[in-house]
């Protein structure tokens, strides 16, 4: 298959260029991972944009045009410190290869006297243009206790100093994976505590794929809508359905680097408009909604979102609101979440939606789904996320009683991460003990259809 395969692969790679871009560009959204997850900051790259680390503001200009996955550090220059890309070949191993069992920390007394370098000394080094790494090395050289520590403790010491004096900034691609993880770490309530593995299950269970029309009820700030849109890649539609007169916030959709083609396929529609059988009226309704709403949610402020995360529980998290960068073009996501056109609503009514995902933890699942199941095509799968078991149990029972769907299951994912290191392999000592429950099933063709 070699020759054809190569051509196929190359052309496929080309087709996906924008959606799957691997290099940043001016105007693109990035997730800055500072010091290995200690802080997570979404920002939009522009020559004027900056990020604050410690007491300094750093221009994000050096990040434009770098590959996603690049690592940056703070360097000292003529005009003060700036972000400069770390030469990947110089990156050392992340962890020591083995534990030194012969040493232990019994003899160590951890007082401040162990370090002879003072704060003033460090400031002096800084003003003389020393790099962060040089400061860290100086701190180690001037530590009275470093030599006696186990290699494990030495590594811990180095890492602590490195985070403070030589911060590392990783440029992550804002994909569903990284966005969901960032919010789950920092603002889990904004996404209804939806864990990334649970989200991945919702997308599978609802059979999300290109050329589908996916109905979502997403009161989770748009994480569901964004995740579905990413999988559609501009083919098909995701319809964010809402109750009453106001669409739900799709704030998180702005964090993705969606092309305008993809954004156009993200639309909002009120459930009542979807439910009217009179298509002539619904056309008006669609317009009516568009007219009466003040603004689609996607045009709200908060351009840079600082999802600062620290492993210490005590640290206070503050949301940095920086202006200026986000309104710069190309702000492609601004069209996401516009009212569904009459044409597409008519199409949905004729054909039915391909599937349904509900992520609305404050609303009783049965009260939502009983009205939405008729909007799904026959044999369409659906998945409901909820934080409480009992409402899903009742919902499942009711669906069974009314014979609306089959293959009903309530599932709960259980995710565990491991530390895999020589002689020190074990599950992480802290875990997210709860990812929520999912009720899934397949709509059948009955009287309700």
């Amino acid at each position, binding site marked *: 298959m070699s020759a054809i395969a190569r051509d196929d692969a190359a052309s496929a790679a080309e087709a996906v260029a924008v*959606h799957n871009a691997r290099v940043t560009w001016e105007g693109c959204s990035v997730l800055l991972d500072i010091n290995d997850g200690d802080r997570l900051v979404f920002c939009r790259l522009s020559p004027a944009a900056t990020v604050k680390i410690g007491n300094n503001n750093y221009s994000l200009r050096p990040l434009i045009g770098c590959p996603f996955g690049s690592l940056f550090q703070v360097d000292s220059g003529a005009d003060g410190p700036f972000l400069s890309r770390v030469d990947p070949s110089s990156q050392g191993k992340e962890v020591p290869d083995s534990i030194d069992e012969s040493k232990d920390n019994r003899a160590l007394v951890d007082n401040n006297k162990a370090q002879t370098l003072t704060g003033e000394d460090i400031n002096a080094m800084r003003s003389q243009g020393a790099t962060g790494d040089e400061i860290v090395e100086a701190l180690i050289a001037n530590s009275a206790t470093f030599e006696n520590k186990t290699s494990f403790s030495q590594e811990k010491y180095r890492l602590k100093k490195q985070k403070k004096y030589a911060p590392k900034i990783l440029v992550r691609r804002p994909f569903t*994976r990284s966005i969901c993880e960032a919010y789950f770490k920092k603002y889990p309530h904004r996404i209804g505590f939806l864990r990334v593995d649970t989200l991945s*299950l919702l997308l599978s269970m609802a059979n999300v794929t290109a050329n589908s029309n996916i109905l979502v009820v997403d009161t989770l700030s748009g994480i569901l809508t964004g995740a579905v849109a990413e999988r559609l890649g501009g083919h098909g539609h995701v319809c964010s359905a809402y109750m009453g007169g106001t669409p739900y916030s799709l704030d998180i959709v702005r964090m993705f680097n969606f092309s305008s083609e993809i954004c156009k396929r993200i639309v909002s529609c009120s459930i009542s408009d979807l439910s009217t059988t009179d298509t002539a009226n619904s056309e008006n309704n669609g317009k009516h909604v568009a007219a009466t709403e003040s603004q689609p949610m996607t045009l709200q402020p908060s351009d840079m979102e600082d999802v600062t995360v620290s492993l210490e529980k005590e640290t206070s998290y503050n949301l940095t609101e920086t202006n200026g960068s986000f309104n710069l073009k190309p702000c492609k996501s601004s069209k996401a979440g516009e009212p569904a056109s009459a044409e597409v609503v008519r199409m949905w009514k004729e054909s039915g939606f391909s599937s349904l995902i509900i992520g609305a933890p404050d609303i009783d699942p049965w009260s939502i789904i009983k009205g939405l199941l008729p909007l799904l095509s026959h*044999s369409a799968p659906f998945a409901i996320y909820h934080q409480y078991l009992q409402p899903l149990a009742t919902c499942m*029972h009711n669906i069974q009683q009314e014979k609306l769907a089959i293959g009903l299951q309530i599932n709960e994912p259980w995710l565990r991460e491991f530390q895999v290191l020589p002689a020190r392999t074990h599950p992480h000592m802290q875990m997210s003990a709860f990812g929520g429950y999912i009720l899934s099933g397949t709509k059948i063709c009955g009287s309700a259809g």
Partner: protein
Amino acid sequence: MLPTDETKQLSFNRRIAEGDLVIVYERHDTMKAVKVIAGSVLQNRFGVYKHSEWIGKPFGSKALSNKGRFIYLLAPTPELWTLVLNHRTQILYIADISLVVMYLELVPGCVVLESGTGSGSLSTSLARAVAPSGHVYTFDFHEERAASAREDFEKTGLSNLVTVGVRDIQGEGFPDEFIGLADSVFLDLPQPWLAIPSAEKMLKQDGVLCSFSPCIEQVQRSCEVLRSSFTDIRTFEILLRSYDVREVNIKDSNEDGLVVSGSRKRRQFSQEDAEENSGHQVLARPSPEARGHTGYLTFARLKCL
């Protein structure tokens, strides 16, 4: 299976036609994939079902046997397919599959390499994620297994998205023509560490590799090899717990027995009392038995040069 072909898209107007693949649903744990052929019949413990009676019905309909017992005819999805496919090897299930697709950052248009193909359970979901413009290149050591997988992808209509090769990836690595073209690589091999150097060459920068292994020793060795050229190395395990929902009778305790203190009057506790005070509630509890382990999923991201 996928809506790439517009005529196969789910719709209120879509009807089962000759040649369609349908999932015959008896119960949640008894399903079967059947190709609809006008003259054919399906026979199970509930009787005989004529395919000709299915044609023209909407997907999701009931079909009756000659004995009046019914089944449902569902449209195939990768999830249903995973439950009905022939197990030629240990397969991946929905929880691992979903996490893999998410962590490999697959979107329409991606190119993904996989080895081994096994029973094609994961391949089907990879294809769904990269459709319509991406491609899955999957390799298996076994000639026959690869041939069966090819037949399956033909049956499920995915052959334009999945190419099956016969190759010993542990021994020979992936073919050179994919160097630098893969968005993601998935390994399910007994000695994954042997294939990692090749996977590294195939990946685009910042591309993600995943290795699935049942034993922790395989993970330990793989991670050692990964550390030289990969970053963001993370090992997970995911399990899915399922809940049984039922109407349960949790009795209120006999109030007489509990509360009437000091009184000499006491009725015998009887079944009727219990029924009287009883409350039927719809409750859920975890299913007692579950898959306790499938494998460890190790993800790693190629360092940027």
